[in-house]
Each structure stands twice: as structure tokens, then as C-alpha cells.
């Protein structure tokens, strides 16, 4: 069974940042020197979404996405925090309410709250237990399995990669 090594992961996220720099897309590489899996990438995006508990009016929300490497699962994780204009962070329940996609029964398995693999603080996280399953077909086929995986799971949490990223998977 093949899996993604930390080195593979680091190379993949560095590729993402390089493309992003050309596209001015905002991905930044962060590094925590003391850790084996210290590299992760971060991007912020503004969205306007309705928040149910506040009268369904649209709210400007800032999404901060992190892609980091989870050593115990041996897979990348996509985690994020969402906050309102005053800086208050949405709870996982508020986020679920604002996201009809997660209304189905397995929403708790799919999107949960976990500690960030590097920052060790709670983040909303796409649960990593199925990541390997999703990634496996990409490990051999794709030049950048992280991008391939991200383009599959990202849309669940409003993260859409432009096709410029997807292009590098096959080139």
C-alpha cells in the first residue's frame, strides 16, 4: 500500500504556493521549525453566506484554510476557521447550520473539530479517516496528489481550486 510521505507532501504544497504566487491566489507557506510535519499552507477567502441563527441574512465571513500533514493518519488534512467581521469565530454548529451540504446524516463524520496538526488548536476539519481512500487512486496517477485530493474535497467547504492547479497533476 502506497502512501504520501512528508517529503511528498512538502513538495506538493510548495508547488501549490508557486502556482498561487503566479496567480496571486493568496496561498502562503508557513513553517514551524521544531516539528517534523512543520510545513503547512494557509489561504484566506471572503465569502458571503447566510447564517441561520441570525435571521438568515447574509454575513460576510472570512475563511482561513490550512492544509497540513497529519502524521498519525499519514495524510494531508484540510482544516479551517471561519470568522465574522468582528473576529468572532463560528462554532462547528453554526457552520453546519450555514451549510446545507452538511445536513445529511453523516455530516458529523465528514466535518468535525480537531486540533490543527501543527498549531495544536481546534479547527474545523474534514475528517482524515477517509482521506487515504480518496487519495489512493491519485498517489500513482497524479503528479500532485495533494492538489487532486484538495480539488475533490475542497468544494465541500467552499474551497475551489482553479484549473491552473489541477493542470499540474497531469502534466
Amino acid at each position, binding site marked *: 500500500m502506497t502512501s504520501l510521505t512528508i517529503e511528498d507532501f512538502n513538495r506538493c504544497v510548495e508547488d501549490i504556493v508557486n502556482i498561487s*504566487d*503566479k*496567480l*496571486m*491566489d*493568496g496561498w*502562503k507557506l508557513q513553517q514551524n521549525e521544531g516539528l517534523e510535519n512543520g510545513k503547512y499552507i494557509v489561504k*484566506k*477567502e*471572503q*465569502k*458571503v453566506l447566510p447564517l441561520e441563527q441570525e435571521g438568515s441574512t447574509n454575513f*460576510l465571513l*472570512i475563511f*482561513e484554510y490550512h492544509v497540513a500533514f497529519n502524521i498519525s493518519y499519514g495524510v494531508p488534512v484540510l482544516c479551517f*476557521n471561519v*470568522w465574522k*467581521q*468582528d*473576529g*468572532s*469565530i463560528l*462554532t*462547528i454548529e453554526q457552520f453546519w447550520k450555514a451549510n446545507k451540504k452538511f445536513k445529511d446524516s453523516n455530516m*458529523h*463524520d465528514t466535518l*468535525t*473539530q480537531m486540533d490543527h496538526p501543527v498549531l495544536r488548536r*481546534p479547527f474545523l476539519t474534514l475528517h482524515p479517516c477517509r482521506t487515504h481512500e480518496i487519495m489512493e487512486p491519485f498517489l500513482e496517477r497524479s503528479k500532485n496528489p495533494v492538489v487532486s485530493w484538495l480539488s475533490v474535497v475542497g468544494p465541500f467547504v*467552499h474551497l475551489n481550486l*482553479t*484549473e*491552473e492547479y489541477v493542470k499540474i497533476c497531469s502534466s
Partner: protein
Amino acid sequence: MSSNLSYVQISSCVNPSFWNKLSELKLDVYKLDVSQQRIWGYYTVINSLSCPITVMEVDSTSFNREFSAHNHLLPFQGWILNTNTIEQFKECDKAELINSEGQKLYQKIKDGDVFENTSLLNTFFVLSFADLKRFHYYYWFAFPVPRHVVVEKVHECDLENVFSLEEVETLNSAYMNLNHCQKAYFIVKKRFGKVLEVHTVASVLKTITSEDIDDYYFAFHNISYDRCAVGSIFRNYIAFILYYCDFLQNRTANFISFNLSRVGSQITCKKSIVYKLKLPTKTKDFYTSWVGWEKNERDKMGPKLANMKNTLDPSVIAENAVDLNLKLMKWNLLPSVDLEKIRKTKCLLLGAGTLGCSVARTLLGWGIREITFVDNSTVSFSNPVRQSLFTYQDSVDMKPKSKAAADNLKNIFPGVNSVGHQMTIPMPGHSVGESMLEQTKQSVEKLTQLIKEHDVIFLLLDSRESRWLPTLIASVENKILINAALGFDSYLVMRHGIHNKNYANEAARHPEGYKVIPGNNLACYFCCDVTAPGDSLKGRTLDQQCTVTRPGVSQIAGALAVELSISVLQHKHGVFAPAYYTTSQTVPTQELTVSDDSVLGLVPHSIRGFLSSFEHILPATEKYKNCVACSDLIIKEYKEKQMEFLLNVFNSSKHLEDVALLTELFKETDFGEVLEFSDEDFST
């Protein structure tokens, strides 16, 4: 058909890390200093498709000396005035404040600082008050601009209609090469028949004359999403241009409302707009009257409040994380578990030794928030390794166990409300002398009060005698009581019945092959044990004060005690939950499964475990009519005589045997037979 240019204000957006950093600086650096601090803001140069509002963000890097540049961000330069009190925040004169901010910008225009860094025209100000105890932040952003700048739109058309494709390309790449300090405002020169040039404002503004003005385009990065409007800070650009090009008053000039967008992998300025604008005349107060306070969420001119308690207060974060863990269990595995009921349950732990520590920690895991300890001893040097709430230092300090346990529990989880009472529980056979009379009475009252105030009572004491009084009171008060006792390598965890008989006759569903005992009719610790406590007739392996136990025994028994209590709480009938059991005479024909009555499965009466074989058995026993602690005889006497009865018992445990009519029974029966009978009840 000319009209005036309309403006939109950029919208402030505070990242949580900004408040965090502000609090840190307030505590460690600024302290009571209320001088203004320079900060950075930034906005994204490429319009996002998913959000039609441009925001200026501040975060923890806002306090850095240098702007943390990134190719997709442009800076705003500003100041924060963080007041020490809410009164200062309210009372400070907002009109004066923004005028003085405007004056500062005017000074930078006059002094020529803006030439070095045109992004100085993108200025902002924050007035704030940080209530650090409550994690409340009152704040008000302003984007100062001169009040009287009315600009007439004479002509507008798309960039592509003014410049050739090649020229747009030149403009694009020249823009990319500009320093980030010059990207917000720059000048394009295009003379007929000549190549398009991109200049910094510094290099050409002062050379422009009334004669060649038509060759120039004043470019500005437009922060407005609405193509019909420009960002309000554009007015600062006008103020700047008019300061150095006085001749432009009441005249027209070319402007490029610069807009970057992403087309495929290309970043292009194709969507920019070219304006011919008629600039205003400088009125007397042109540079002295400033506006720009931001409206709040109610669309009023007023401050905003960020309540960051959930986001920044570590104790709240811990509490939410603990709750979320439990909610995930509910959502994923046990949809019908009632977490709110558990959360509201008040637990009284009688005994803060090995069992008490283990029970308390497991209760925390279940989200219990109210835990009270009663114990009479202090932490000794041998305790910390086995009693998981204590440390070596507690033994050095000889802290009372009840207090040490309550304090340390709060260190583990600040969300818990834990209290310790140092107190000895009065015991049968422990005579009360004259001097101790008052204190004993007080102890009885206090214990009674505590049992009444709590929902679940855990009996985790290290002697048999001390369990008697709480057993009696809890039975009378109809409380859930969970009892745990330890032997060297064995343990007993059980729930007691209660005095209330109302429920006893309701027929519980009766799976074939099982016997059933209604919850209220279950035996107490003493039912199975016919002699009165305090009378060591026979050596026992369980529950001796000096018993040495295998270290894991208390952890196992403590955990089981909590799980048993939670199962009772979650059972439809609570303390009345029936206990099923099998005997050698009955052969079960079906497996007992989780029913609607109990989401967590079966609720046994008792669990006896033996580490020598790593086995559990689940015996169930009915109340004993002559029980010294829970029988009707005893309770009737207690209810009638109260303290008088108790004092008699404390002075002689023989009194219990009299009241429970055991004395008579002993006369009639061979003592050995009684013991045999009680042993059989424990077999499965």
C-alpha cells in the same frame, strides 16, 4: 449627462488574532499608555468572485514595524487608540479625532511623505476599548477623507476602448513591477504616437503642467466592487493631486480606475475604467474638515462590539471542546443520549481517596459540572501515586484531601464547579462523648443537607461503618446512590434501592429466563450483610480501612461506578430502572439487548470483579426486610426519632440490630445459615 462620482467605503474586518495581539500588547507593553500606536491593514488586490465587498483586514501582523507584504495584498496605514476605560472610549470627541487624523494626512501630503509611499493615502484609524476580563472589544474604525470633494464624471469608458491591446499589456506588466508602496496610486503617460509609460507619482506629479495634462492618466487601484463607484479613499488622492497641481481646480483630467481580475491563469487589468473627471475647487476648509467613521452593523454611526469570549477565553475554549467531544459521541453513536441531563447532574463524592479521585475524573469526562467532595483526611506522601488528583506538593503542604481534590479538579478543567468539605461522617458504634455532641449533630445536618442538594451520591469511603449514615439518608431522600468498595484484587460497585415504593409494582418487561428486580427495591450495601456495621464479627476481604489493594482496582471500580451512574441517569425510569439477573435455576433463552428504556444498555444492580481471574459477575439482590440501613423498620425509627435514634446508633451499633429485629432473628436462626443464604444471592 454628467453626474457626480459616487463613493463606497471599504469595510473593516478584524481577524481574531488582532484582538489576541492587542490584549497581549495592552498587558505587556502599552499598559496604561494611551498614546496612538501605528498599525497596518491590508486588502486583496484581486476581486474575489465569491464576495462583492472589499474589506480591509487587520490581524496580529498589523502591529509589526514593517508591513508583511505579499503579492496579492496592498497596505493601509493606520493608528489605534486603545482607551483604558469605556468612559474614555465613549467621551472622546469623534469629530475632533477624525479631523486631527485628517490633519496628519494633510501634513504628510504637504511634507511630501506621500511621494515615497502613496499607500499613505490609504489611511485608517481605530478607536478601541478592550475589556480584557470579559474578552469584550469595543471598537470603531474610521477611514478619514476630506468632507468636501465633489467630483463630476464627465466621461467614462472601458480601458480597452482607450488603449490598444499591446498598451494594456504594457500597463499590466509595468504595474506588476511597481513596489507595493506605489501600487495603489500611480501615473500613466500616453502621448499620441508615443509608447505608453507607467510612472510613480513621485517621479512625475510635480512636472505636470496645464499644457500637457491631457497626456496623463491618474491611476488608482479601485477598491469598489461596484463599477459605477470608486472607493471613498479616492478623495485623498484628489486632495493630494490638487495640492501639487493647483491648476486642476475646476478642470478636467484623465483617471484610470484600476481593476485587477483573474482570467484563467492571467491577471489582467482589462476591466479597468478610464474616466474624464472634473475636479472641485478647493474650499476654505478643504483640508481641515474630515469625515469617515464607519457605520456599525445596524447601519448607524456608532461603535461595534466584538464579544470574543468563545474565541479567545481559554477556559471557554476548553469547555466548548469538552462539550463537543460529548456531542460528537451523541451525534455519531448515541443520538438519544441526554447530555443536558448529565451536565446538570450534581454529584456528591463521599470520600476523596483513590476511588474519589478516579470517580471525579471520569465524571469530568462525561461533562458533569458540579462535583462536591467530602473527606476528613489530608494528603499523605503515599497518596499521590494512587490518588490521581493529588501531587507530591499537596502532601508536603498536608492539604485536606477534599480541598486539594476540588482545587486540582479545577486546574484540570476550570469549567467545573468543585467544592470540598472537610468532615468526618458519624458512624455506628463510634461513641459520641459530651464534647463531640454538638459537632456530631452538625455533621449529620450538613451531610443531610449535602445529600438533599445533590442528585447522585457516590459512596467511596474506606470503611464499612462510614457508609451507614449516607445509605440511610440517601434512601430516605430517594437519591441515586452508587457504592464502591475494594478488596485486595476484587471490587464491588452497586446501586442502592430507595425508600419510595410507588414504582415497585409496575410490571417491568420480563425477558424470558431472567429475573427482574425493580430499581427501588434493590438491596443496599448492608442488605446483603446481615450484621450491623461496626461489629467485626467476621474478617472481610472488602472494605477494610487498612486493605491493601492492587493499584488498578480503584481505577477500574471508580470508572465502573461512574458508568453505572450515567446508565441509571440515562435510563427512562432513572433510579427505578429494573435490574435483570439470572440464577442457576433460570436459563436465559435470549440475549439482553439495548432497549428503548436504556440507551446505554443494561443497568445492573451490582458488579463484582475479580482481578485474579479478570472476571465480572452481575448479581442482583432484593432488599432485605431486616436491613440495618434501608429497611422500613430502620427508616420508620429514623423518621420518628431523628437525632435521638442516630445518637443511639452512634453510641452502640447493637441498637441497629434491635431496631431491625435482627437480634430476634439471630435467636431463631443459626447464624451460619444466614450467611449461606446471603452468599447464594451472589452466585450467577
